């Protein structure tokens, strides 16, 4: 194989591995979209808060990585609960745009507040995210697999498996699928819809926090702008794969990761976002339901 092809293969595999974090973010969007039919623009902030919680635990308190990971998920859950209580619960009967704009307000508020806190306390201090696996990797033929990317993929895969178990093998998951079909019928059948929705927010936020931790670890950096980036990439991945379905979020996230890195390699690094966007538009024109979506969009 020529060097060009080997490099291309290498970037594709890196993209596939790193794309698993995008898939985790997209899962958060897609679960809430599936149950509520509302875009949760504040989801990026759970990613950012999770990233910072992990950074504080691991860098400042020097706790082991696994503790940081759990702390990231827990902190993100707190944010998720707040979003549910502030932006969704009081607005359940409103037009679908109303909660979306409220979450946009939450997004702006939290990100700006974090930027202020960040600059006053940690600027040039604790921005490094601990990554004990830097420069470790395994060679498979001509391809080098980075250990931190492999761990990212493994953790994401485990979380996705857990999600499938929850959705398809537990009573809570059954109730979730019920609520995704129809809130009203759920009420009539005695499903505690409010509690299920709060639980869904917790689940989505926990996955967002996990994604934040993994992104921070793989890129060695905790930044207040990560939330915005997560919103852009997560929505992108969700639409690319097909909104409302978990499989779609996974396919979309992986595809986005590969597209970004190979686009950067083949065409130009500077324009990689533009390349990914053109492909998204092409998908929207040809298959509006997304790559993995069904003709009538599947819910959760």
């Amino acid at each position: 194989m020529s060097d060009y092809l080997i490099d291309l293969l290498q970037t594709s595999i890196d993209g596939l591995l790193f794309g698993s974090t995008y898939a985790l973010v997209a899962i958060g969007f897609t679960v809430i979209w599936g149950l509520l039919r509302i875009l949760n623009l504040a989801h990026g902030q759970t990613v950012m808060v999770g990233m910072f919680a992990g950074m504080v635990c691991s860098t400042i308190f020097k706790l082991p990585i696994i503790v940081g990971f759990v702390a990231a998920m827990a902190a993100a859950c707190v944010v998720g609960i707040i979003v549910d209580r502030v932006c969704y619960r009081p607005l359940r009967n409103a037009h679908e745009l109303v909660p979306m704009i409220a979450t946009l307000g939450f997004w702006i508020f939290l990100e700006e507040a974090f930027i202020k806190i960040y600059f006053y306390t940690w600027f040039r201090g604790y921005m490094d995210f601990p990554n004990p696996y830097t420069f470790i990797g395994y060679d498979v033929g001509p391809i080098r697999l980075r250990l931190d990317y492999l761990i990212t993929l493994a953790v994401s895969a485990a979380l996705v498996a857990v999600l499938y178990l929850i959705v398809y093998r537990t009573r809570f998951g059954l109730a979730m699928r019920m609520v995704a079909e129809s809130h009203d019928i759920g009420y009539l059948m005695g499903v505690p819809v409010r509690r299920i929705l709060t639980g869904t927010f917790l689940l989505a936020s926990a996955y967002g926090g996990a994604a934040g931790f993994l992104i921070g670890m793989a890129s060695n950096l905790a930044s207040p702008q990560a939330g915005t980036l997560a919103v852009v990439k997560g929505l992108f991945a969700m639409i690319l794969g097909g909104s409302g379905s978990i499989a779609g979020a996974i396919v979309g996230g992986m595809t986005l990761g590969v597209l970004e890195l190979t686009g950067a390699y083949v065409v130009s690094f500077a324009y990689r976002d533009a390349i990914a966007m053109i492909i998204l538009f092409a998908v929207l024109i040809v298959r509006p339901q997304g790559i993995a979506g069904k003709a009538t969009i599947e819910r959760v």
Partner: protein
Amino acid sequence: MSYWYTVLTFTGINVLLAYSVYASYMTGQVSLGQSAFFGIGAYTAATLTVLSGANLFVAVIAGGAAGTIASLFVGVPTLRLRGYYLTVATVAFAEAIRVVLHNFRFGKPREGAAGDTWQGPDGPVGFRHISYLNEHNIGTFEYMSIVWCVVLVVVVVFAILERSRLGRVLRIIEEDQIVAKSIGINVSFMKVGAFAFGGFLAGIGGGLYAHLMTFISGDDFKIYLSALVLAYVVIGGGQTMWGPLVGAVIFTLLPEVSRPVKEFRLELFGILMIAVMLFRPAGMISAANVRKWAVGRRLRALLDRSSPRVSSPMVREP
């Protein structure tokens, strides 16, 4: 004094941006990517005046045309679909355009200048030396007048639109797309048209902004700008044309008057957006307010009892 003229010019540009969001907001579509059309308009207009010596008027119109084309590029594939696709696509588009503008390099070397020797967009360095106003001796007061003339035209256009059949058609689409379709309205066409008009306004605003600033770079057109502009409309009130105007004017001037507000303005906007959605989804100025205050319409209502009702599904009773 010239500082305040500049502030007022900014206010005018923000009003234009607010109306650019409002145009598609009328049909119930939320755009989070006006910064992209704003940036495209700014780069197009500035390139025309700097590199080909075009007239400011021509350049700004060309900026508007570029914004229209870009918004058609986003709108045609996404507005056929229902719901939130436009919001997502505009977020993605705005990020991509910011990156492209950040890396865009085009132009020619500058003659007889020490130091910066590039004329035109220069990648991450930005687009410098947009000196049309200096070269043509347009002072801050004159430029403010020009910008506010444009704003006045746009306000009049929206006032006419609001009272016309077309405005009512757009509102029906916001209310219920299926109903709109059933009475023979071409929903996709109307939505794309409204969005493209928004892109045009943002492009014009961008052209005016570039010449005011004399220096622009890709980082001026972050997604924040779009969120802020949407905030003007949402907080000001999206039911009538007065909301965007009042929202943009108040929230551009308030940070200039009060220092703490300037420091924490984005946090304030965020909280205000949540509060408005929770307690007053119609925004500061609702359609009911306008009806109450509009003297002329009240007189007409006295004459014939069937005064037109402008309402919005944003305030649905529980």
